[in-house]
């Protein structure tokens, strides 16, 4: 409960005085920090005259971002398709599997220990096997992204479904709700904040998975571009690719946050993003 959090007092404070500064602070501070770092970086490269093979200046990277834009956009589209499909597959498999863990005892007994044990296997190590099985095309990347991303969705879904308050379940039972209705009216909506937590973690993991897949073997994508540029000692293009990748990942994360804020408007973390996270 929010009232019991030690930071409840600061919550009340920011709510009492919702000035423009207080509302912009969550965006302003990281932006300023980032700007500061970029300026320091630029100054460092200019002052030390470090080789641009080792560390290109931000201005060089920006120039490459512009000149190589068509290439970057093309590669981004490939990588985005890979991690979006992998993420989508994680959602489609992860949420029902989480529900089965909670509602079907045999499934829990049979699958849960293996599921947890499987997470100790380093996924990057099995990525080459996927490529051997499925070829160097998109399918292997999608499946690698899926294998890395689906676990937090399963676990967070199961946690959220289990956390439904018993008195709320009793209320709907005395209205005549059957097991499916208990799920639909209580357990599932109650689990949504957890599910979104899992989705956000999964979104970043899916990006990692797609890149790992491209590193192993690919002819397209941002990960492939990083490898190629690196081989040609075009460090500036490597950095430009990484920046593009970050923009993709962060953009997807914020898209999820937007959806979350719309879907669970009722939830504290959705209403007060600046203090309700974690």
């Amino acid at each position: 409960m929010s009232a019991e959090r030690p930071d409840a007092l600061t919550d009340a404070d920011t709510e009492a005085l919702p000035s423009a500064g207080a509302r912009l602070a969550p965006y302003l501070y990281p932006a300023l920090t980032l700007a500061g770092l970029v300026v320091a970086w630029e100054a460092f490269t200019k002052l030390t005259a470090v080789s641009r093979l080792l560390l290109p200046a931000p201005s060089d990277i920006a120039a490459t971002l512009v000149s190589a834009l068509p290439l970057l956009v093309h590669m981004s589209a490939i990588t985005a398709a890979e991690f979006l499909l992998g993420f989508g597959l994680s959602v489609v498999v992860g949420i029902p599997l989480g529900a089965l863990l909670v509602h079907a005892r045999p499934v829990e007994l049979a699958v849960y220990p293996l599921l947890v044990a499987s997470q100790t296997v380093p996924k990057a190590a099995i990525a080459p096997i996927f490529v051997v099985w499925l070829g160097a095309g998109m399918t292997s990347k999608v499946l690698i992204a899926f294998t890395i991303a689906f676990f937090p969705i399963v676990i967070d879904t199961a946690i959220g479904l289990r956390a439904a308050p018993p008195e709320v379940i009793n209320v709907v039972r005395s209205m005549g709700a059957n097991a499916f209705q208990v799920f639909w009216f209580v357990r599932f909506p109650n689990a949504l904040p957890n599910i979104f937590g899992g989705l956000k973690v999964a979104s970043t993991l899916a990006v990692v998975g797609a890149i790992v897949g491209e590193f192993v073997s690919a002819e397209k994508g941002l990960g492939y571009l990083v490898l190629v540029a690196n081989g040609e000692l075009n460090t500036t293009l490597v950095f430009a690719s990484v920046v593009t990748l970050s923009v993709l990942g962060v953009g997807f994360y914020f898209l999820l946050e937007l959806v979350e804020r719309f879907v669970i408007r009722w939830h504290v973390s959705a209403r007060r993003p600046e203090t309700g996270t974690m």
Partner: protein
Amino acid sequence: MTAELRTPGSPVEAARPPFVRIAGVEKAYRPRGRALQALDPITFDLGVGEFVSIVGPSGCGKSTLLMLVAGLIPTTAGEVVIQGQRIIRPYTDVGVVFQQDALLAWRSVLDNVLLQIDVRGLDRRRYEPTARALLARVGISGFESYYPGELSGGMRQRVALCRALVHDPPLLLMDEPFGALDALTRDQMVLDLQRLWLEARKTVLFITHSIWEAIFLADRVVVMSPRPGRIASVLEIDLPRPRRLGMRESPAFGRYAAAVRQRFQAFGLLSET
């Protein structure tokens, strides 16, 4: 006293068929392997349209008894029979107010009240005016679109009360519904509940910690012992209706309150030294 002289709502238990029969109902929990006797055998009836209050010390098994009557947990021994039907699964022709408001955080105030309608598959449009009227009656109008997380504890409990009433059930089970209210709102809610009951004559099982609340509302007050809960005594409350707050200071009311208090003192509760 004869039945004809009684004001409406006075106990005429023999003349009425029982609506709810609680026969030797017993409950033992097994928390972490250890047996815990929450309720010793309890036997009493609720007549049709009767208002019965239960008072008892904390932890004596009042909430447990309510859950047993609602068919939400199984009895260890004995049986609950409602309108001739033995309760072995949740009884649904009922409105329940639990000790915790048990509102759904993701539904607005109005949608929480209409949850009753949605789960039962009834026509939402037909019941929405009823829901709004009930909310207005308990002073929640203007908050229909708020989420429970944006309400005070007392407001949430009033929403839970509306939810229990919106489908007009013949039986009401209420577990300390006014526990989280301030004294003033509480007085008002008690008066409102009495008025509702006088209009609709539902059968009510009303659990409370408050001795005056129990007496003020009830035809009969069941006093329970500390855990494992037993019926310590049953008081017929023979006060005219509608009852007024001022009656709390009347000698007759004082005698009932003293009787309940003395039962508690006999258990070693309410030590005055």
